[in-house]
């Protein structure tokens, strides 16, 4: 993933005060080569082509930063003309435009300038403390076929924040250059990601870091693709503020976390019995003496879930009630968490570590990322990329590879962690140092959605009534359960109605989640609804019905035959459906569709339909076993899902019953 990364220690070399930038205007004529550029949507050149985009961020200037920017682009369509709408951000009161040029080069050789005086300043936001302005200008006379060339040098407030530069845009970039001149005296670093297969280079000259790229294509958009940050080449420039060898960075983080954890567990406790409160709580848990360590830890996880409120996952009612109470200031300590019987996600995980260690297991914290947004990149030495805390437990006598992961207070069973942390790398933090580990997803058998549905027809056939109930375990509907709990009652009811399938004219009359007041456990929902039907013609002999609306989970739709990026599912899963379809009045079941069985590398599917005295019984099983399917194996997955979709559209046939004599 990481094509290039480099770290540079702070130097004592005196800061250069040079303001002169090497960024200059492009030629004021359209070259013959530029004239030949025509729309080529298949290669990312539809509305326009960025011919050159160059930026120089100079932080080697006393008391301020300087940004120089140059864009040259060919406009290919009317939509591409928007590239000629210029906005120059001026942050803070120090923001100032030092130099500007802007011109439109028309196909007939005419050059139309936008003078600096025609740039208009607009206040974006202004308060007593901060002002954000933008200079706006529209390059004139822009038509498809023209080339625009503009640039500026601006002064900005000093910043030491990381700068992330996306190296792929909406459109094809033929030449991209980014120069960073860091501030002297600080450690500086950059990390370039996802540059494989692209013509991208990073080099260092003196203190300046240069990134250059050619013919950088736009990023395609595909369903179930990895997060944008993981498909778009980018470079991040940042200061490390870390005076030691960068290779030791994550080990230092681990030591720091461990110290913090020890403080958390022992804060304000008597020197001779610092964890007495943990022992007392373990006594309260009534763990059988002969239980193995895994059983003990499972009990601890369940006990925390039942007895310590996770403040990060409260329902809207709990939030309202909490806000109405008076709360004394709380310490960030396990003792306070136990005393108050509430804590944040992070505190509950640290508390679990305390219990686990007290019970003799080795337990450490793990820092993880939300992989729907970005992945962990160890080359980027910044903890800001890590989103959440988990716990890794190692029962006595086991190798470190056998760790069990826990997210205490998440509502998930012992050994399960929320799916959005799985399938990617995380950082295991032990007193001995840090280690990158891959968080494996839950097994499909642990995430089962079981739905039972009945379908009845109104006597006059004017509507079908569908009632179904679902019990979902593990990761199935886990995130929805969290969301639904946090919603306000009216928003919650709307969401439940949506989950129950309200769409078009399918009208949900009942949608209920029975144990939403409970923090953890399975997701259970019961639904009822109906859809108007056009009654069959009195002479019609057949009646057909598709059961696909009867509580069947959404099957991923992958219709495109081409794929550039891997398919990323949320989690492996199993869906089980049993549907009882009653015969409409005056009709009886006709032919029974043959069973369908589809076996693929990424899943299994079975559909069995049986005739019953009152109609049909449909039994459906779908197991989607993969978390990540590489693009090279996409076709197998697509074929499997196509077969599943086809089988799900099986129609049940009824024929008119013979009239009774």
């Amino acid at each position, binding site marked *: 993933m990481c094509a290039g990364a480099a770290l540079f220690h702070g130097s004592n070399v005196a800061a250069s005060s040079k303001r002169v930038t090497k960024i200059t205007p492009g030629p004021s004529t359209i070259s013959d080569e530029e004239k030949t550029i025509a729309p080529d949507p298949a290669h990312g050149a539809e509305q326009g082509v960025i011919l050159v985009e160059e930026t120089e961020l100079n932080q080697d200037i006393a008391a301020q930063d300087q940004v120089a920017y140059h864009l040259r682009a060919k406009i290919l369509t009317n939509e591409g003309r928007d590239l000629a709408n210029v906005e120059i951000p001026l942050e803070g009161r120090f923001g100032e435009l030092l130099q500007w040029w802007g011109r439109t080069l028309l196909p007939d050789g005419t050059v139309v300038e936008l003078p600096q005086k025609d740039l208009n300043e607009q206040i974006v936001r202004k308060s007593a403390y901060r002002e954000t302005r933008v200079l706006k200008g529209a390059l004139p006379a822009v038509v498809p076929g023209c080339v625009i060339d503009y640039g500026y040098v601006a002064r900005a407030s000093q910043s030491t924040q990381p700068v992330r530069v996306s190296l792929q845009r909406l459109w094809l970039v033929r030449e991209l250059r980014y120069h960073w001149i860091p501030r002297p005296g600080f450690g500086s670093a950059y990390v370039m990601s996802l540059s494989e297969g692209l013509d991208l280079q990073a080099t260092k000259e003196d203190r300046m870091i240069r990134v250059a790229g050619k013919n950088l294509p736009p990023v395609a958009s595909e369903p179930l693709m990895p997060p944008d940050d993981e498909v778009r080449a980018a470079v991040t420039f940042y200061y490390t503020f870390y005076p030691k060898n960068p290779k030791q960075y994550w080990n230092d983080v681990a030591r*720091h976390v461990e110290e913090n954890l020890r403080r958390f567990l022992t804060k304000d406790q008597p020197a001779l019995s610092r964890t007495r409160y943990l022992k007392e709580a373990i006594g309260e848990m009534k763990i059988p003496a002969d239980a193995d360590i895994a059983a003990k830890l499972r009990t601890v996880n369940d006990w925390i879930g039942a007895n310590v409120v996770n403040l990060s996952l409260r329902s809207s009612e709990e939030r309202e009630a909490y806000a109405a109470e008076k709360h004394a200031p709380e310490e960030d300590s396990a003792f306070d968490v136990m005393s108050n019987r509430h804590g944040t996600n992070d505190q509950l995980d640290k508390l679990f570590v305390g219990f686990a260690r007290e019970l003799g297991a080795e337990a450490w914290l793990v820092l993880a990322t939300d992989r729907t947004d970005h992945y962990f990149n160890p080359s980027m030495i910044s903890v800001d990329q890590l989103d959440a805390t988990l716990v890794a437990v190692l029962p006595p006598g086991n190798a470190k590879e056998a760790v069990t992961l826990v997210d205490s207070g998440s509502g998930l069973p012992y050994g399960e962690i929320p799916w959005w942390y799985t399938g990617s790398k995380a950082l295991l933090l032990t007193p001995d140092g840090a280690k990158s580990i891959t968080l494996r997803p839950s097994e499909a058998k642990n995430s089962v959605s079981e739905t039972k549905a009945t379908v009845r027809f109104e006597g006059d056939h004017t509507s079908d009534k569908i009632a179904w109930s679902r019990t979902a375990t593990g990761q199935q509907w886990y995130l929805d359960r969290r969301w639904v709990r946090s919603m306000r009652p009216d928003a919650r009811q709307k969401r439940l109605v949506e989950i129950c399938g309200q769409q078009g004219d399918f009208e949900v009359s009942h949608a209920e989640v029975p144990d939403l007041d409970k923090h953890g456990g399975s997701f259970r929902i019961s639904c009822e609804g109906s859809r108007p039907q056009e009654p069959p013609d009195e002479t019609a002999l057949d009646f057909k019905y598709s059961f696909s609306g009867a509580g069947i989970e959404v099957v991923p739709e992958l219709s495109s035959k081409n794929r550039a990026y891997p398919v990323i599912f949320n989690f492996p899963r199993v869906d089980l459906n049993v549907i009882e379809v009653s015969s409409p009045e005056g009709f009886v079941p006709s032919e029974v569709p043959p069973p369908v069985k589809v076996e693929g590398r990424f899943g299994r599917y079975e559909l069995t339909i049986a005739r019953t005295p009152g109609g049909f019984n449909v039994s459906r099983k779908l197991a989607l076993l993969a978390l990540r399917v590489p693009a090279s194996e996409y076709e197998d997955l697509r074929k499997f899902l196509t077969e599943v979709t086809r089988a799900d559209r099986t129609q049940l046939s009824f024929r008119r019953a013979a009239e009774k004599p």
Partner: protein
Amino acid sequence: MIPHSRDTSRPLIALALLASAMFSSAARAARLPDWAKAVVEHAPPLGEATPKETARVLFAETRVEVLPDGHMTIRRRFANQALSATAGEVGLGSFFWDDDTRVETSRAWHLPPGEKAEKSYKEDAFDVALGDAFLTDDKLRHLRMRGIKRGSIVFFEFTATQTPRLLSWLFPFYEGVPVLRTRYELTTPPGWTVRTAWLRTKGPDAQISADVRAWELNDLPGPDDQPQSERAADILPLLVVGVAPPQGVQVPIPAPSDWQAFAAWYEGIAAGRDEVGPEVAEAARRALASSGPALLERIQAAATFVRDHVRYIAKEVGIGGIQPRSVKETLSNLYGDCKDKGTLFRSILAAAGHRSYPVLINLRTPETVSDEIPAFWFNHFIVAVPVPHGEPVPERLAHAVVDGGDLGRLLFVDTTDEYLSIGWISSALAGKKGLVIAGSASRLVRLPDDDAAAHRLERRSRIEVRPDRSLSIERTTRYFGQFAALARFDYRQSSIDRRRTVERSVAGIWIEVETTDYSTEYEAPDGAFVETIAFRVPSPTSVEDSGEIRLFPDAVDLLPRVPLVKRTTPVLYDTAQTLRLETILTGVPASASLPPPQALEFERWSSRMTATRDGEAIRSSWEVAVTRPRFPPEAFGDLRKLWAVVSSASAALIDASPRSDAGAVAPPGS
């Protein structure tokens, strides 16, 4: 990113976070002003712990005082109450202003339940630019109070002075959340006349005391977010106000007495902006170079030239918000906003010897124009071109020709809408009342909203059933009017994504498809966006080989539906519209029987289905025309019938199996 996946409370890495003293509320204790105390006294109980709405406005008052010179002072007060602990937004109060307004004071008081009130500091105020114009002077002055709790009441008071452009205006009684009591008060100098009118809904009569008038409404609802519904802001009452000094008293702010006077004022503002110079003459030559000689062809060519050559950029600063730039400037820049583009179009017509009128209209908000009291509540500029008596109007332009009364037939042209063909009225403009500015003949004209033939989708599918039971399908769709505008917009953002969308839609019906061709015609001579996709559907498996082919399987996807059982508000479609699907089927046995013909006609819609044999082919067509796209609750029965007919059409099928000998049926719900 998954919400809450980031532990914001994570103190793992000991990064010292400095608490900012500036947000401390310790030293802000203050007395509430009397008006706020009165609000507190009358505040109803909070009610249930987790109510439907998180906030409400207990009281809102806008007080306008017209000064003898026509300038105004404005005082706006309102009191927000948090009904939930999570209603932090209650602490944010806003006041709209622009370069014609000077904000004099901004103050707020926060009364947490059971605690003392605290007052805002100057530092709590901040301004943000408003709107999506490229450049604008519209701003919001915000005041933010923190520490909001359930039951907190936050009182805001803003005062400002304003130089209005006209002595007439509209006041919307809408706050974006439920309002218990809202009040509008107007004070005029002695002897001034005041005219008022209600739009949309009749409001209360004014309480009058000398030169002070007040209107008060209670219990106004917040927004209704049901799909396909009217926005609450579009149906709540609007008060139109016009004031005028006594006869003989001159003030620097115009007070038009009627729409003709208003038009004259606007003509003064726009005077000279449309001057035809050599640049315009040259532009007219270029625009009309390939046009035919007929008047309407020339109009269409000129409008298309402006629509396509001048990019839309709005610079809405000061007078630039209502005054067109000179056509010379627009031509030189090749950019401008609606009034710049419209004015250039008019100048090009003028250079070619054709007359036209500016039209001021509101693009999005309905019913903002009073017949009696002229006020500037327009946000769009289009053009009306007179169509001489007897001049034949081609079908291509007929949908935008409207009876202009004394002005005769008028062709309405919107050169700003880049995706709509000239000759159509967009759904945003349909039904809106605009002011045609034509000197003493100026008049209000309402644009039609019931032209179902204008906005239409015509789809022809040729389905060939091959001997191996695979299907070869070519589907050509011609989109007209609003349908075309939407399709063109999609296509122009990304032709590749558009193609993918179309491929996904056919795959949604046929499951496994192999596209063999895809092509488009961006703007056909008849104004259509034409899109053709050809694809193959492989031989069916034994499981699914019922031999039945649905004739119009996509019908059900073309007219969106919403639940009706609990609905109490009208269901809206964007526009009156016609959907016409035609399927030509070959390769089916001669014995296959056809679905029966059908013709239905109701107050708001009509439908027709036919199927005939044409040699070896079966030709079938289905058409539905929705002439009145607004279905109030009493018309839900009609709407249900419409949907049932669409479902029925979607299920209509031909038994194409070789063993076919059964009658064709249209099964429900399949």
